[in-house]
């Protein structure tokens, strides 16, 4: 099939960006979006041009590296699917597809379609961990966790840290990401001691770089891990709980 790709080109965070159009010939419907970019880049290199920079790694939807905005929608037209698992079969032959980086104030452009999402890690640094040192844990079989609890924790733990929720959010909020982490950890028995501190620390870190949530809900439409909006209610619950009970537990 043949596509026209309108791609955002920007040399560095400081440089001004612009759209440029490229035509891509001979791509198959079974190509992933990123394979289409691979093919385009191959041609660009061959014709002496500079290839399009974009992040990707696992190419199977688990590492969270990839992420481009396709026709205005983070990750692409198929809902809840990361860019590396979007296929060209979603586009009509001959159509024009616009590719932009993830857009958010907290995600400066590194180059072209690659952005800096380290803000998400700084949220985790705010408290998204369990303060148990190597070797000091007790026997994991000594406490029981119900099957449902383990599964529920996993539902929230499934977040791949791609940042699409932030890019989709008209408020630039990282609430879905943060809420997913809080809910994941809160459900597990070994993590309860620092529950309050975690909520306080993570929300403070989040507020430093990201926007507030107005429950707009566009984040859940793009989230490749299918994190539900409950995560955000959970975030608020944990924060409220820590305020009402005092900070630490």
């Amino acid at each position, binding site marked *: 099939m043949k596509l026209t790709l309108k791609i955002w080109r920007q040399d560095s965070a400081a440089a001004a960006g612009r759209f440029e159009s490229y035509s891509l010939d001979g791509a198959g419907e079974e190509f992933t979006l990123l394979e289409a970019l691979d093919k385009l*880049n191959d041609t660009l290199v061959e014709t002496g041009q500079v290839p399009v920079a974009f992040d990707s790694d696992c190419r199977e939807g688990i590492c969270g590296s990839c992420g481009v905005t396709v026709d205005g929608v983070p990750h692409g037209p198929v809902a809840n699917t990361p860019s590396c698992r979007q296929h060209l079969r979603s586009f009509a032959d001959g159509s024009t597809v616009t590719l932009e980086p993830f857009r958010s104030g907290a995600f400066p452009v590194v180059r072209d379609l690659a952005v800096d999402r380290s803000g998400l*890690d700084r949220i985790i640094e705010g408290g998204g961990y369990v*303060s148990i040192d190597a070797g000091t*844990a007790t*026997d994991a*079989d000594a406490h029981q966790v119900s099957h449902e609890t383990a599964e529920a924790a996993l539902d929230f733990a499934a977040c791949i840290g791609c940042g699409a929720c932030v890019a989709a959010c008209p408020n630039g909020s990282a609430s879905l990401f943060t809420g997913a982490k809080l809910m994941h950890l809160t459900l597990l028995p070994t993590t309860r001691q620092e529950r309050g501190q975690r909520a306080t620390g993570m929300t403070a870190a989040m507020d430093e770089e990201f926007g507030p949530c107005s429950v707009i809900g566009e984040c859940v439409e793009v989230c490749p891990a299918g994190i539900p909006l409950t995560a955000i209610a959970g975030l608020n619950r944990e924060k409220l709980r820590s305020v009402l009970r005092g900070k630490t537990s």
Partner: protein
Amino acid sequence: MTASLPADASALTPNDVRTIGDAIAGGQPTLGGPNAWADRKLHYNLVSPLNRHKFRIIVVGTGLAGAACAAALGEQGYDVHAFTFHDSPRRAHSVAAQGGINAARARKVDNDSLARFVKDTVKGGDFRAREADCWRLAEESVRVIDHLEAIGAPFAREYGGQLATRSFGGVQVSRTYYTRGQTGQQLEVAASQALLRQVAAGTVTLHTRSEMLDLIVDNEVEGGAARGIVVRDLVTGRIWSQTGHAVVLATGGYGNAFFKSTLAKNSNVSAAWRAHRRGALFASPSFLQFHPTALPLGSDWQSKTILMSESLRNDGRIWVPVQPNDPRAANDIPEAERDYYLERRYPAYGNLAPRDVASRAARDEIEAGRGVGPLHNSVYLDFRDPLARLGRPVLAERYGNLFEMYADATGDSPYAVPMRIAPGAHFAMGGLWSDYDLMTNIPGLFVGGEAGWAYHGANRLGANSLLSANVDGWFTLPYSIPNYLAPLLGTPVLADDAESVLRAVAETRASVETLAASPGTQGPDRFHRRLGEILYAHCGVSRSAAGLAEGIRLIRNLRHDFQADLRVAGDADGFNQELERAGRVADFIDLAELMCIDALDRDESCGAHFRLEHQLGDGEAARDDDNWSFVSAWERGPEGTYLRHQEPLHFESVQPETRNYKTS
């Protein structure tokens, strides 16, 4: 993937491509068996808490091995600098592991034990691993589960609330802990959180989008010592040096040399390879595992091979039509005309035969013309029977996300039609050689996880490598590194303007600039694809002397073309992914040559290394313990010549036998 054998097949002999060096010692405790590790720990030197911050340790890689090592050392109070080329530590390829992680906790009454774990691992590796290491792996596996569970990995639980386990290939007990099909992700996320906790605490300095390009060896020290690394900031292009008292390489596996592999696009061998160029021995480079349950290739532009978890083999049944080139759709082929060849050939293990065995069996079927799918390059993995027996909800809970992934990639639903699978390049058993303490032959240079060679011999058992990465990172390096550091108390790190530092930085800069200025016409990916084709054809699931010789010839040609016709678009001072790839491909080409040399040299079949010249009557691997019961550890000589050292292997607890997955 046609194996075009050269006309002069015997052109190259091992003697043309390598010389033989001295034997080396693995430094394992003389006291073998279950007490070895405890005994070794008892004799390690310690660093007092007050002095720990005076030692700076560089950890390259934030996968399970690296993140764990950096976090654990940070928790103890060392000054740790962690590096990853990823934009976030969590993205290391450990995140992609699906099936599970083994542990010899032996809670069930299925007769598991530490000794059985060791036996399975040593046997699974076809007696090409160091047995003492495997004991440590078994022993520390218990703490690994406890720790990761405690720091947030939501392991699957039984309805009674206890940890759930399942079986994996090559064992007959149920010792694999898992979190749905996302075990690696959950462990990696937990480990990177632990790492970020130390970043917040100030003990670890994290350098993301920073790629190690060289190792700094201080030759003023008697015998040389690893004292730093040269790093390229991938965003700004700045090349700088980080010095420290010890360097840990936890940079993952090199299966991506095959281009179409289960590894990530950016997985590479560069860190290990550059250390190798600086003198570190490289062990068993040709021991590469092909995963039997990868998805078959579809298009030319397919960028990688997607892996379906081995756990699928717990319930799925593998078969091919009895009739070669059977044109019928899978569901139209009656039961009597299906050959469940693994169940037939290996009744005791059936569909859970170890990976090398299963991959080879699949290759046999495909080469005999019984392969299925449009390109006849795959076999069926069928869930019809378990679907009837267990029902859809149970299967959905066990494999739901894998089925979804399959449907997504191929357009077929595994609930309706059998999956198609094929062997794909996967796990590198080989890697930087290290002794029992995980230190390479360069003092101060340690290695952990898949970047090293430990534990897995010639074939890794499923779910043992998440374990090995964790055991290395959490429970081995944090003991053995302080042992190395203790005598260095009071020694300053190298100054940034020390001669060896400046030289390494200057050399790296020069080579990056040369690469960036490559004037040709083709991007690095083109060469990478070609390299992958050569490796699949000549150094793949099965190998022959003639094929390997041809492989070496083709790789040398490829290197020549690469040097002549590479184009690196863009500049050296800025974010330039072509430049990153070019450097990695250059190293892969060199590694590929050594893989072929190693495979040509090792004149036996063992584990994943299957030489067509060495098979038993029934097509099984013929190991040659009399001549090859050692680990090959390669030294790089001048101008790409190679010297093979050997570490002899001794087995105390598990006596070498021919692997038998048919009856026991």
